[in-house]
């Protein structure tokens, strides 16, 4: 399955992936409109160090402990992609307790949010990768 992989030596730490992610999941058509006056809460997040930066998003694990641990059944695997049902999630954050990558975060709606490889929005393929100027994240089969 195609996943988002990180090439950390290429990451400039520019945060563009975070902006593209926020835009993609806003379901707005215009990026300026989508980002104007918003505090972004993206599903991919940069880890910044002295010299190293890299962006972390859901790994779509084959044996995901977030899904197994989910106490409501809101998380499930659909064609390899780990998705969340926002109607079922009550924001207990057991998945945040479980995820070894720190890739699940609270959403602005009081439940959780995670990368669904943009299959949950109008774009269909990861916009973070599309927006990355330096191939520091790629969407491919490995």
């Amino acid at each position, binding site marked *: 399955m195609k996943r988002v992989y990180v090439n950390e030596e290429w990451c400039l730490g520019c945060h563009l992936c975070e902006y593209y992610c926020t835009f993609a999941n806003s379901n707005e058509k215009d990026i300026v409109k989508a980002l104007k006056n918003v505090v972004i809460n993206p599903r991919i997040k940069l880890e910044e160090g002295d010299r190293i930066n890299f962006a*972390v998003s859901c790994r779509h694990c084959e044996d995901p*402990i977030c899904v*197994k641990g989910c106490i409501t059944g809101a998380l499930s695997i659909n064609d390899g992609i780990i998705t969340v049902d926002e109607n*079922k999630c009550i924001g207990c954050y057991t998945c945040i307790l479980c995820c070894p990558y*720190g890739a699940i975060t609270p959403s602005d709606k009081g439940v959780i949010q995670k990368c669904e490889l943009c299959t949950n929005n109008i774009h269909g393929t990861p916009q973070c990768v599309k927006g990355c100027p330096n191939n520091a994240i790629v969407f491919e089969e490995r």
Partner: protein
Amino acid sequence: MRYVIIGNSAAAVGAVEGIRKIDKDGEIIIISKEPYHVYSRPLISYLLYGKTTEENMKYRSEDFYDVMKCKVFFNKEVIKINNEEKQVQLNDNTIIDYDKLLVATGSRPFIPHMEGLETVKNKFTFMSLDDAKNLEKAISPHSKVLIIGAGLIGLKCAEGISKKVESITVVDLADRILSSILDKEGAKIVQSHIEKKNIQFFLDNKVEKFIDNKAILAKGEEIDFDILVLAVGVRPNIELIKEIKGEVNRGIVIDEFCETSIEDIYAAGDCCESFDITTNQNRVLALLPNAYMQGECAGINMAGGEKKFGKAIPMNSIGFFGLHMVTAGSYVGEVYTKNENNNYKKLFVKDGLLKGYIMIGDINKAGIYTSLIREKTPISEIDFELICNKPSLMAFSKIERKKKLGGIK
């Protein structure tokens, strides 16, 4: 091949999904004492709070049993296992044969002996959807509710009904709330947060005696109430195995393949003990993620696969009135404390390993700590100072990060 599963909750679902990974066609029969499609037990308090609905509480979709090809007997109880004949007997005397049996009977409320308890008319426990429905029917905006037990279940109940009753009082023997997951300092923070919601605590105290609608506490206080909720603790349902001389302690004893001491009988979830890798001891971990994973492991082995259930640890994530806390492992060894802007964090390190942690408030990326505990990662292999500050993948070596984020095996 016929699989029979006793119980219809998280462990049972784990088993069904585990079996179907290996065996797509074998017959699966589920026997459920409760009348409902499998629901998420922890959500009963959210139902009362208005944060979910009975429909959204379903732990698996409406077509789960069809898709998984399971036959379910609702409202039926297994009263006996006959392991010689490989049969179970239901309360309506139906006999069902099995090839492989899973006991996923969970736990039940523990009701300690309390003087005068029989004189209390409106008393409830808080473990099932029916319990929640009964409690909801009984309460009114004028209700004065007394809850015995300041643990997870008692306090979740308090939160659930907080907007619907006049007052809530909680009494507990322990000197702090949530004593199974929080230390004293952490418990104080959460307690004062909950107290702001008009919930009153009497800790390090107990009910000496009930007289109708009055509770007299050991330290002399008298509390008038009209609804009593008993949430002192839970006891694993081990009797079916105990009666046929299977090995039991507090919970049913299982091996690393989730099999009991009796051939072809497996057990999973709140009814059994798990090997806690942070203490190297067997203990009952009455937690949903554990129940699911144990069930899945049992299912895979029942269907002829081979899977070991390792890495069990106590781990919990819960919130009360918007304040979140995540805890895992055991609180032993050297303590690293980090408190910042109302956020509270403690890490516990022993023998060069992270053994446990408590986070209150900021719980971001907590799972990175959890995985250090579960994977027993030596802290000498990571930048511990960095990770103490905040959980991050930056603290791992470049090679380790390549494995985690670069898909390198």
